[in-house]
C-alpha cells in the first residue's frame, strides 16, 4: 500500500496534467494523420474526374492520334488506376509530389514557389482581421452592453451581416473598381515591382467579410463578459474602460476568437482561389485554377493536397493553442 505525502501532491498533479497533454496531442495528431490519408485518396480519385484528356492538352490540337497515344504513355496515363495510385503514394512517401505536365517541372518546386504568396496573403489578411475585428467588436460590445445604444447595435448588426454575406470575388471586383480603376491609388493586380502594395487589395478582399464575422462574435461575447459580476466590480472600482477591456474582458474572449480565427484562416486558404484569380496573385489558388484549365493532374493533386494538409495543421495548432489558453479544451484533468 502506498501513501501520498503532502510533498508528493504537486508532482502527481504534474503527471496527470502531462498525461492529459499527451493524450490531447495524440488525439490531434491522429486526426491530422486521418485528414492527410483522406486528402491523398480523395485528391487522387477526384482529380481525374475533371473533364478532358490531359494527353491531348499536353500534345496540343495539332497532334496526331499516334502522338497523343505516345504522350499518354509518357505521362503514365495508360496505366491502371490502382498502379498509378501506388506510384503516387510511393512518390509522396519519398517527398515527391509528382511532375507537372504543363510546366514541365517538379510539382514540389511549383508549390514552394507559390506557397509564400498564399501564406503572405492569408496571414496578412488574418492580421488585419484580428487588428480590426477584435477592437471593433469589443468597442461596440462595450457601447451597447445592457441594451444601450440600440440604433448603433442594429446598424452594426445589419452592416456586418450584409458585408459578411458578400462573396470574396464580388468584393474583390468592387475594390478593384474603386481603388484601382476609379481612384487609381492601388495596383489592380500583382505587380513584381510592388509586391507589398499590390497585396493590399487582395488582403482587404479576403479580410473584410471575416472582420464582420469575428467582430459580431466578439461584440456578443464582450456584452456577455461585461455583465459578469467581476467586471461590474471592476467598473465599480472605476477602472478605466480600456484597462478593464484589455485586462479582464479580452482574456475571456480569446477562446471563441481563437477558434474562429483558426476556422477563418483555413477558409482564407480556400477563399484565396477566387481572390488570387481576380488579382492575378501568384499563389496556390491561382495555381490550382490554371492547373485545372490545363488538366495538369499532378499539379492539381499536389496543390490541393498541400492546401488540405496546411488546413489540417493550422486547425491542430489552433486546438493546441486553445488547449494552452483554456485547459478545459484538453478534455482531461483541469489542473
Amino acid at each position, binding site marked *: 500500500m502506498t501513501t501520498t505525502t503532502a510533498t508528493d501532491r504537486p508532482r502527481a498533479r504534474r503527471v496527470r496534467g502531462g498525461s492529459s497533454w499527451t493524450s490531447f496531442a495524440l488525439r490531434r495528431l491522429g486526426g491530422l494523420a486521418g485528414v492527410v490519408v483522406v486528402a491523398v485518396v480523395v485528391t487522387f480519385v477526384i482529380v481525374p474526374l475533371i473533364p478532358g484528356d490531359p494527353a*491531348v*492538352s499536353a500534345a*496540343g490540337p*495539332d497532334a496526331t492520334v499516334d502522338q497523343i497515344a505516345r504522350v499518354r504513355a509518357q505521362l503514365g496515363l495508360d496505366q491502371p488506376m490502382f498502379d498509378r495510385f501506388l506510384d503516387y503514394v510511393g512518390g509522396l512517401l519519398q517527398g515527391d509530389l509528382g511532375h507537372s505536365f504543363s510546366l*514541365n517541372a517538379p510539382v514540389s518546386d*511549383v508549390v514552394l514557389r507559390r506557397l509564400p504568396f498564399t501564406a503572405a496573403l492569408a496571414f496578412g489578411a488574418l492580421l488585419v482581421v484580428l487588428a480590426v475585428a477584435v477592437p471593433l467588436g469589443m468597442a461596440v460590445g462595450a457601447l451597447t452592453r445592457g441594451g444601450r445604444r440600440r440604433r448603433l447595435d442594429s446598424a452594426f448588426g445589419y452592416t456586418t451581416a450584409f458585408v459578411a454575406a458578400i462573396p470574396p470575388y464580388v468584393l474583390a471586383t468592387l475594390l478593384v473598381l474603386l481603388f484601382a480603376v476609379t481612384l487609381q491609388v*492601388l495596383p489592380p493586380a500583382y505587380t513584381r515591382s510592388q509586391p507589398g*502594395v499590390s497585396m493590399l487589395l487582395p488582403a482587404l478582399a479576403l479580410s473584410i467579410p471575416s472582420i464582420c464575422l469575428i467582430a459580431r462574435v466578439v461584440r456578443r461575447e464582450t456584452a456577455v463578459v461585461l455583465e459578469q459580476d467581476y467586471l461590474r466590480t471592476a467598473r465599480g472600482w472605476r477602472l478605466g474602460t480600456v484597462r478593464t477591456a484589455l485586462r479582464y474582458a479580452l*482574456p475571456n474572449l480569446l477562446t471563441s476568437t481563437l477558434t474562429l480565427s483558426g476556422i477563418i484562416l483555413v477558409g482564407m486558404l480556400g477563399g484565396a482561389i477566387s481572390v488570387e484569380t481576380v488579382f492575378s496573385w501568384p499563389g496556390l489558388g491561382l495555381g490550382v485554377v490554371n492547373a485545372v484549365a490545363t488538366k495538369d493532374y499532378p499539379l492539381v493533386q499536389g496543390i490541393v493536397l498541400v492546401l488540405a494538409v496546411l488546413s489540417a495543421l493550422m486547425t491542430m495548432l489552433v486546438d493546441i493553442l486553445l488547449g494552452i489558453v483554456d485547459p478545459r479544451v484538453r478534455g482531461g484533468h483541469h489542473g
Partner: protein
Amino acid sequence: MTPPSSPPSVRLPGRGRRRRRGTRALAVVTAVVCGSALAACSTSTAGPAETGTVRTVLNSDPSSFDPAQAQGQQTFQVASLLYDTLLRRDSDARLVGGLATDWATESASEFTFTIRDDATCSDGTPITASVVADSLRRLADPATESTWKSLVFGLGDVDVAADDRASTVRISLSEPFTTLPQGLAIPQSGIVCPAGIADAEALEAGSVAGAFSGPYTVQEAQQGLNYTFALREDYAAWPEFSTPLTGEPPRRLEIGVSTDQSTVANQILAGDLDLGQFADPDAVKRFTAQPDLHQYQVISATAYVVFNQREGRPFAGRPDLRRAVAQAINQEAFNAIFTKRTADVLTSVTPASFRCTNTDRSLLPEHDPDAASELLSDVSGVQLIGNTANRQFSGGADYLFAALTEAGAEVNMSKVDNATFWSTIAEGGSDWDIVFLGDLNSVGAISASLDRVIGPSVEDGGRNYSASDNPEGEAALAEGLASTDPEAQCDAFDRAQRTLFERSDIVPLAGSPLTYVTGPDLTVSVFDDYVDLATMRVGAE
C-alpha cells in the same frame, strides 16, 4: 481573472470631454494618415521609355522552350522572341530574310537558303549553315516527335544538306511542298543552337544559356509565376522589313501569367502593364476612350462548321443535309454573338488576308431557314459538340444549337472544355456529327487549313477531322502544294475551296479576333493577321 484588491485612480471632472475630443482627433489623424498613404501608393510606375523594360502577361505558361515542341499561340510568341527563323513574315503575305539573306525555290521539292554571316548564338557560336541544318534535321526527325514537321516540310521524307563554305542550306523533300518557305517563317521552326540540341531536357526548360538564336535570352524562368527575358547586346540579325522598324527594342521583358482578361485590362489602364492580348470584345471596349494606347486587331483563328462524314453518321454521303445546315445558319447572327461584329464573316476557311482565299460570296448558300427545315425537320440524334474555351466559343455553340433546332433538327449538344473538344474530334471513332472549329493557322498558308477538311483523316495520320472523301479537292490541294508558280498555285487552291462549297463540307462562319493593346511608349508590327512580338519597339515614331 479577478480585479485588483485596491481601486486605482478616480476619474477627474472634465476627463470624459477631453477623451471625446481625443477620440475625434485620433479619427481625424487616422483619416489623414490613411488618405496620405493611399495617395502615396501611386500606381503609375515608370514605362518602357524610362526603364527599357516591357511588362506583359501570357494567359498560360509556355508549354516548352523548345520551339519544335511548342503548343499554343502564347508559346509560339515566346519562341519568336528567343529563336530566329530562316525567313520572317512581312506585310502583304511577303517573306523577308531572317537568318537567311536569300532563298531560291528551285522546284516544288528543292529549296536553297543562303545564311547570313553576322548571326551568332547566345553563347557566341557563329550560326553557320551547319548549325541551321542541324536544327532543321532535328525538327524533321521523327524521333523529335514535333507536331510541326508535317506543317513545315509536308508528309514526305526530308533531306537537309549544309555547305559552310558557300553558307547555304539545301532542303530536298520526297513529296512536293511549296509552302516550305512559309513554314520556315513560323516560330516553331526557329533555329536551335548546338548547345540546346545537346541537352533536350534543359532546352525544354529554357535553361540552356547558349541555345538561343533570337534577340532575347531567358534570364529567369519561374514556371507558373513569371519569366524575364533580356535583350542580347551582341544581337545584330534584325530583319529588313519592307517598312523599316524605328525606335529601340526593349532591353528587358517581364512576363507574368494571368488568365483573367478583365484583370489584364485593369493593369493596362493603370499603367502596370505595357502589352496585353484580348480575345474578349467586351474587354477591348474598355480601351475605346484611351487615345494614348495602341490597339492592333488581327484575326488569330477562323471559325467554320465541320461535319463528321465517317460511315454511319447522319451527314456522311448527304451533301443535301450539309447544305441545309448551311442554309439554317445566319452568318451575321453568328458573328454578332461570336465577335460582337468586331470581325468580318468568312468566305472560306482562312481570313481574306491569306493568299488564295476565296472572296466570292455567291459560292456560299444563302440563309434560307424554310429550305433548311424541309430537310432538317426529319433529322434526329445529331451530336453537336460545343467548345467552352471562352465565352465567344460557348456562345457560338449555343447559336448553332438554336439555329439547327429552329430548323426542326433534333440535336443533342455537349459543351466541353477545349482539351476535350480537340480530343473528341481527333479520335476517328468518337461520337460527334457537327462542330465549329476555331482553326489557328500558324503557317499563314491556306493549305494548312484546307487539310483540316481535305485529304487523309486524323486516324490515318493526316489532319482532316471530317474524314470526307473528296478526291477532287485532294487532287487540287496536292496540285497547289506542288506548284511553284503563284498564280497556278492559287488557281489550284481555289479549285480545292470550290469542291468544299459544292459538297457543302464546310460552313464558313467568322474570324476570331484578337486585339493587342500596348502602352503609349510601345509599338509592335502587324503583318496581315500576324503580330510579330520580336518587332516590339520603344519610342517609335
